[in-house]
């Protein structure tokens, strides 16, 4: 093709234009607000909100490790989706062989979930 733009770039050309417009809009709204809003500084206004009481201790406190375990489990299923999506669109080509292959793949991943479940990771305490 003699066209200077690759097919990929042309697919996303309009998306790019749309994205830049969205960025400009957000910037514009913030700019307008900067022009018209009042600015009456008082030290108390900049204290973090804790239901009206003076904040205690460090703001970046530690949070439960449980959240991160779910993030790890999510990676497992996201990788699974990466393999399933292209396979699902081409199922007719693979036929019965593809079905067996994908069943094995999904069962292995499911065993991972079951393992985590058995270990009590999914229980929220």
């Amino acid at each position, binding site marked *: 093709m003699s*066209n200077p733009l690759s*097919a990929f770039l*042309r*697919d*996303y*050309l*309009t*998306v790019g*234009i*749309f*994205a830049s*417009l*969205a960025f400009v*809009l*957000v910037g514009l*709204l*913030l700019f307008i*607000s900067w022009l018209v*809003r*009042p*600015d*009456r500084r008082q030290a108390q206004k*900049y*204290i*973090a*909100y*804790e239901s009206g009481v003076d*904040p205690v201790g460090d*703001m*970046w*406190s530690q*949070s*439960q490790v449980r*959240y991160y375990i*779910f993030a790890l*489990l*999510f990676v497992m*299923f996201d990788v699974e*989706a990466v393999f*399933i*999506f292209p396979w*699902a*669109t081409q*199922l*007719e080509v693979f*036929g*019965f062989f*593809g*079905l067996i292959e994908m*069943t094995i793949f*999904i*069962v292995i991943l*499911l065993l991972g*979930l*079951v393992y985590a*479940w*058995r270990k*009590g990771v*999914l229980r*929220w305490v």
Partner: protein
Amino acid sequence: MDPLLSGGIGLSEILIVLLKVVVAFAGLMVGVMAMVWFERKLVADMQNRIGPNRAGPFGILQTLADGIKLFFKEDLQPERSDPFVFKLAPYLALVPAFLVFTVIPIAGNFSDGQDGVVTLFGHETLMQVADPQMGILFVLAMSSVAVYGVMLAGWSSGSKYPLLGSVRASAQMVSYEAALGLSVATVLLFAGTLSTNGIVASQAGWRWNIWMTLLVPFVVFVIAATAELNRPPFDLVEAEQELVGGFHTEYSSIRFALFFLAEFMNTVTMSAVIVTLFLGGPSGPIPSGAPGWVQDFLLPLIYFFAKLLVFLFVFVWFRATLPRFRYDQLMDLGWKFLIPLALGWFLILTAIKVARDQGWNPVVAGAVAALAVVVGGLLLRSSIRAAEDKDFDAVDPADLDGAGA
């Protein structure tokens, strides 16, 4: 790909692209404002109140009035916040919300094997802003980027409530993303393409995925989408009684308005995604004798907006009806129910699809696969039960009231 851009790109193509972008942009903004009004009015009706009724007829300009008010509010930034990330987060929340809409086909004639191509000023094009080959992956990618907006907003505020809200939000959104992706995969089995235009075209002639996939993936998708949107009953992210405002507690003035806008825009675009994936997008019965503009624009637009309105109503209905989940219930529903269900259903549908391609009896294949999935599921379930029982016995009651619990 959009036929408009497949040839050479000259001035007229660029102008049409710009026109589409501006129309879609303006339409989305107006749609979001209308959605905010629609939600407030509908919730008011369901709670036996009147709702907004001062600004404009039936209070329809209420959103605009609120937005203008927020422009004139002082912009506060907590002293302990991270200034750069604090300012970046609204962009990360709002821009992906806009971008999802680019791949949604809103009009075009899909009946009788047509592929929704319309003629605009003598150029053939599709009635969607862009049609990348991996359209539906783009939707999932953007909904993942939106997690960053919420997470960074909470983290950068340098305050405790937002931090808790954002940690909750990210765990919730990634959990339900798995179920969301799996129910999308079942749609792909029948569509055979990742392009949103192709997905809509594959559902022409009432072969809508909602019944082609036997309803379950649709239900999973709607539940997971509600959780992805952090809408009630999954709005633990901003549970008022626990976290004040959640991740945007420290945001004020127009920065808060941007988060608010992003939230409602996500609701609108997610409803549009549901319509595209499961309800055939803008397709519907189109009389062949009608003039071209009725076939290409008027009727498909009416069908699309009618379907969209159903889901917008359903999301508001959820909010007015269902009480909020507890966090452990939320995680259990996602990991222990929706994901196994979506996986099992995916395998059953794969068997049916393969049987149909190979010329076997799809009902028998489906029944055999369902039996295998149920037996396998029960086996795994009993193994989990056994482990949980053992775990329960192992806990010494004396530990429960000491520091060891």
